């Protein structure tokens, strides 16, 4: 008797704190072939980006992260998506979409400063990632050559979405 009435899984998000930073580090080390600096971990704890840096929980187990930073380029404020990842067994269950939508909603309603765009880099070998962002309204702006120094291919697409 293995068919218990399916309850929909609990998906929740938590802000980053020094206490759960260890979990963020663990996820990053497993999800990305990139070692992030101590400055990265310092920056994601700052209050200005609290709405844009989250841990993703699935049935109360931490399974992914999403981290952005705010960038001021002249009179424009952009939101840069630095990392987003979900542990392999938990993918294709809409966690990526849900967390991206959470961030974008926070960005759209962000008043001070007003956020104009959100953008990110995707390695040119990762077509499925590109399609994912395009489904969420992102457009390819350009190819950033040799964005990555050590991993191959070195090039990355720059994908962007406006908040008007």
């Amino acid at each position, binding site marked *: *008797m*293995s*068919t*218990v*009435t*399916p*309850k929909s*899984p609990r998906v929740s998000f938590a802000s980053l*704190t*020094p*206490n*759960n*930073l*260890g*979990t963020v*580090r*663990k*996820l990053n*080390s*497993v999800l*990305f*072939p*990139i*070692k*992030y*600096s101590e*400055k*990265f971990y310092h920056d994601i704890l700052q209050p200005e980006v609290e709405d844009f840096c989250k841990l993703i929980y*699935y*049935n*109360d*187990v*931490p*399974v992914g992260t999403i981290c952005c930073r705010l960038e001021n380029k002249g009179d424009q404020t952009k939101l840069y998506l630095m990392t987003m990842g979900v*542990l*392999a*067994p*938990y*993918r*294709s*269950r809409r966690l990526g979409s849900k967390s991206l939508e959470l961030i974008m909603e926070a960005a759209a309603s962000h008043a001070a400063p007003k956020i104009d765009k959100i953008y990110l880099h995707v390695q040119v070998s990762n077509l499925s990632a590109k399609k994912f962002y395009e489904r969420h309204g992102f457009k390819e702006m350009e190819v950033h050559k040799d964005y*990555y*120094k*050590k*991993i191959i291919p070195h090039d990355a697409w720059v994908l962007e979405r406006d908040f008007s």
Partner: protein
Amino acid sequence: MSKASGIPVKRALPSKESTLFKELLQLYETRNLKKGLKTADQILKKFPEHGETMCMKGLVLTHLGKREEGIEFVKKGIRFDLTSHICWHVFGLIQKGEKNYEEALKSYTQALKFDKDNLNILRDAAQLQTQLRLYDALVETRNNLLKLRPNVRQNWVALAVAHHLNGNRKEARKILEHYERTLKNVPDYDIEHSETLLYHVQLLEELEEYTEALRILDVSAKERAIVDRTAIMEYRARLLTKLRSDEAEHAWRALVEHNSDSYDYYRGYLSNQGLSLDQPSPEALTILKEFSSQLPKAAAPKRLALTISTGDEFKELAKPYLMAGLIKGIPSLFADVKALYQDKLKEQAVEDIVTSARDEFAKASSDPSSSTAAGEPTSYLWTLYFLAQHHSYLGRPKEALAILDEALTHTPTLPELHTCKARVLKRAGDYLGGARCLNDARLLDGQDRFLNTKCGKYLLRAGMIDEANGIFGLFTKKDAVSPAVDLEDMQSLLFLVEEANAQRQNGKLNLALKTYMSISKVFDEIQDDQYDFHGYNLRKFTINIYLKLLTWEDSLRSHPAYITAAVEASKIWVAIHDDPSIVTAITSSNGLTDAEKKAKKKAKKAAQKQEETKKTSTTSTNEDKGLESTPQKDEDPEGLKLFTATDPLERADKLLLPLTSLAPNNVAVWIAIYDVAIRRKKLLLAVRALNKARALAPEHPEVHLCIIHLKQTASALPQTPPAPIGDVFSDSLLKILPSEVSLETFNSQYLQRHSMSASAIIAAAQGAHKLSAPRQEVENIVFTALNDGVDLKVPTALATIAFLISIKSPRVDEFRSACDAKFELSTVFKSSEELTSLRQRVLAGESEATTATEVIP
């Protein structure tokens, strides 16, 4: 100045001073301490030898924090006036504040001689008598109090309780009945009256007067005199069962519906039907299944059904229980279910169910679009966690680790996986690896104090005491002297036991002894803490729980932490007695280098300065510091005072004494008692202890060694002890070991009987060593423990290495490397260089775990 006969010249004061004295008493009552001090000095100027004033002054000074001065004054005061009840009362108060209850009672008894109707003194005396368990005296005191104030309700109930404690329940009942007859104008819903009635009912139940008890219960319940509805239900159910009434079943059913998760209610229901939860029985199972379907949200009937059922019925019930738990993701599911493993068939059934669940979940969760609960990746995850714990529990570390590795690849962010891996490694003898894994778990959630404590504990098990304290310090009070001191203040027995064991493993016997003694101190404090309840519970009339408290306090030291502390501390003291060079080794190695000495002096000076500034600031306040002594600063940080005590055996004996009645089935306790008694030359006590141990476990390795020790001691006695001791002693000895059997034969026979038991082999080797066998022979015996088929475990292997070192064997490293090869997962047998590098990795955390190549600034 007229004097009544009997009052000494020096006590009576002229009117001015006598008014001042009355004022002084008032000022003390209202805690107006500075004024009180002034008034006392005024009287003393004119009458410097007035004992009562001196005592009062001493009392006031103590309240102001100047303990030593205060006590001096009190002692002086008493000397000047030995027949003043005030002086003795004050002295008693001071002693009570120091928790010296025996002396305090003596002072109070003296005070009562001179003023036998003083209510204050009588009340305090009653509390002291209860604390000291002097129930005969307590009854007398309570009787006096009742005679003096028969209209105070408390005094009636207190007398009843005193009779009850003294073992006279009949008298207690009489008092209560008399009391209830005299009651008038009881307000509605009066909790005190309610509790008194419940006490009355409980008393009748203990007297087996069930009908009367039920009558009172029902009448009072109807009148709403008893307000505790749950208690009413519980008492009813119990009494009806004892009266074998038909209404009992209904009463128990009502209780189960009231709280469907209380195992006691199910037990009561079933016992009423003549069934029990301890034996499998189809009727009981039917009942539990009925409850299960009537109360679908209750966990208890489902779990109890697993205990009672067997065979296929068990499998049918276990499968939905386990599946529901795995899908819900209950972390404690294994801990819940492992009690069933006493039945090997159930153990196998559980393994089969969970293993097939694992396969099912693995398949289902590989398809993300499936929406069933079985397809959730978390179902698979928790199933892996369960199986890992299962294999670890059954002693299969390799299987457990394989499953954990898969789980950790699946979801590395679940702390439970890391703690489980740590446990597996610890059980396999890799304490450093265990500590490392638990630190990884801890880093995942910095605000989880459970992970913090477990990490500290594993560090202590690995012998990394300083690092452990650093980890504990993340959660202990910031202004405490050190994390260890704070945890000792908080009476954390878990911490103290682990720290003491770690210090002992590291060879710091002085520190270990100090910590074991602080465990004993915690129990002394818990015993002292009950004092306030003698007054409190009577004031609140909550008698039933009060009596339970007293019973609990009486068996307080049966707690495992106390047993460990007492036995281990005794072992250290016995070792000191046998080999005083242990003491000199530690005291001399405690010599510090010059630089360290200078640093110590500086720290001491700084601490002294702090103390002085503190003192000067407090003298100006009027604070009432109460009568209790403030906790002393630690004057013996290295535990050397204890370690160099001149009466080690007597101290050990004192520690072990409560265990003769509280832990009579513990072999280690009787062995410890034997070791202490024989060295104190208490021959008959030693033999008695050894016989108790033999009765519990005749083939126990320690028992075997004690027998050899006893025979050798007996043979070494310069002359046979005088009759009757000598005769009884020799007779007992013959019963243990017939005279025609030589010790060598005894030892080799033991070895033959237990050639497959590692601990017995080692005992035989130690026995051979005691019998002066050549070292090679001893070593040969030891090495047979490595043979196939022998049940050698890591702790025994470690003890063996310690033994080989103690006999200065050149084959220590050989044994150690053999163990390292035999226990593949262990690290505890590695060389010290390997251990040092492993130790550094323990707290390193993430820094070395990443394999990333690209760095983004």
